[in-house]
């Protein structure tokens, strides 16, 4: 009977998500096979849009750039976040929940506010440039600080670091210290304990946090657009332009679905990696 209660409770939520998340994506998929005739949409299906994406160096480049940025920010947040997650799980003690909350608070300020703040910090006459000049490190403002890939990646790291920390923190929480003590008793030194015990056992957290950061960086629209300057053209902003100014909805849909398909492949691989490594860690 209670099996039915759960299904009954889930039904309205399922209906809502099917109507406003799954259905729109399926319609988007259908659109990706149409094309534009002057200003009207011609509804005879073909693979023309996908062929255009595959044959265009521009779109291929933008897609590669998106995944390159994703991988880079995943790597940076992993290196920065790993010690933080360890500290929160193993050393923070009574301060743990306060620190976790503090880590998440900046997220609630909203994307726009955060991007705005980075413009104030990184601008030609911004705080960082002025401080560098004041400290005598440089004698003229560094021009390429704002509106550059550097600015974009600093802000992307800032935006998504908390997600990486949360993923890793969960992994550290379930890491039993007895494993490390056992390794030490068996004579493993600290670097080898890290490489052979800690890292493999927190690997699922690294994958989970990495996937979250990856998908959010790949899908970020505001940050490159408002901090990247000329380098801020991303595959996501290309989709935006095709829907806005260019009015080529079918091509935009095809690029969107190409991105979704690649992301889904990453999720499938990530899920497999997590399952496999938690089989090892859980035994």
């Amino acid at each position, binding site marked *: 009977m*209670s*099996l039915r*209660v*759960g299904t009954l*409770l*889930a039904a309205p*939520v*399922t209906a*809502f*998500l099917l109507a*406003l*998340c*799954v259905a*729109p*994506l399926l*319609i*988007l998929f259908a659109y990706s096979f149409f094309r534009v005739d002057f200003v009207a949409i011609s509804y005879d299906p073909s693979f023309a849009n996908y062929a255009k994406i595959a044959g265009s160096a521009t779109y291929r480049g933008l897609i590669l750039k998106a995944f390159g940025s994703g991988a880079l920010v995943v790597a940076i947040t992993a290196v*920065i*976040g790993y*010690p*933080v997650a360890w*500290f*929160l799980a193993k050393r923070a003690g009574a301060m743990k*929940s306060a620190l976790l909350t*503090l880590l998440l*608070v*900046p997220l*609630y*300020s*909203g*994307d*726009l*506010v*955060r991007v*705005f*703040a980075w*413009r*104030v910090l990184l*601008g030609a*006459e*911004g*705080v960082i440039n*002025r401080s560098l000049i004041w400290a005598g490190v440089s004698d003229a403002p560094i021009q390429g600080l704002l509106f550059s890939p550097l600015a974009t990646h600093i802000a992307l790291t800032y935006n998504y*670091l*908390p997600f990486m920390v949360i993923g890793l923190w969960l992994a550290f929480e379930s890491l039993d210290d007895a494993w490390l003590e056992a390794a030490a008793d068996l004579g493993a030194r600290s670097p080898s304990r890290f490489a052979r015990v800690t890292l493999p056992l927190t690997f699922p957290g690294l994958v989970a946090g990495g996937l*979250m950061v990856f*998908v959010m960086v*790949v*899908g*970020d*629209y*505001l940050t490159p657009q408002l901090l990247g300057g000329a380098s801020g053209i991303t595959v*996501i902003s290309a989709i*935006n332009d095709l829907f806005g100014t260019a009015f080529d*909805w079918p091509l*935009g849909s095809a690029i*969107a679905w190409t*991105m*979704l398909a690649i*992301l889904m492949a990453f999720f499938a691989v990530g899920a497999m990696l997590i399952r496999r490594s938690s089989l090892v860690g859980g035994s």
Partner: protein
Amino acid sequence: MSRLSTLWVWAVFAFMYLPIAMIALFSVNDSKIMSLPFSGFTLKWYAEVMGDGRLGGGFLTTLSVAFPVAICATLLGGLAALAISFYPMRGRGIFAVLLLAPFLIPKLILAVAQLIMFNETGVARSLLTVIAAQTVIVLPFSTLVIASVLIRIDRGLLEAAADLGASGLSAFRRVVLPLMANGLMASWVVAFVLSSAEYVLTAFVSGRAQPLSVLVASDFRFALSPSLNALAVMIVFGNIALVALAELIRRRASKTGA
């Protein structure tokens, strides 16, 4: 090792709060130029924001979206959290993936997909479409908040209620619901905050009535003004106050629920 990591953690937290601190400082700085050195204390940028009727209108629009979004997301999130963590159901794994999907799909892609659907089905863009679209985005978060309270509730309480002759429905109403109430309140607040900060999706599916986030975005594409600092500070601190409230409620819940 431990001292080094403490230093590292301090540095990371400083990094996380640096932008917010900058905004706060420049919002009370008496100069149009947002840079060092500071030229004195002023509240004029706050006065400018308060006196701006257009922003005031945007604020009201934001509220009239965020209230219903928070209610819808909490109701649906409550059902989803119960189905996932409390009442066993078939296909739980698939349901969990479906729930997570809006969080994992790039927002702009979801936004253009919804735009096509509304266009094809002839639904005019309005505040209603904004509310529906934002509820989708917020739902994973409200489900998570409510589920985090639910998993702490002892299932034995349900069995005890059943042994004492309570029907499933009255056990839910008199045992589960009171314990879950704090989670629902926390979810409402979190959903409200997330909704009011949302820009990408909102910009796509909003019609004429523009919420604050869309107005601010168009503002600072053109020029950075210190009054935007003041506005940002009001948004940030409003949100932080709300989230602190939610956290307080959730903490209280985890104490009584344990």
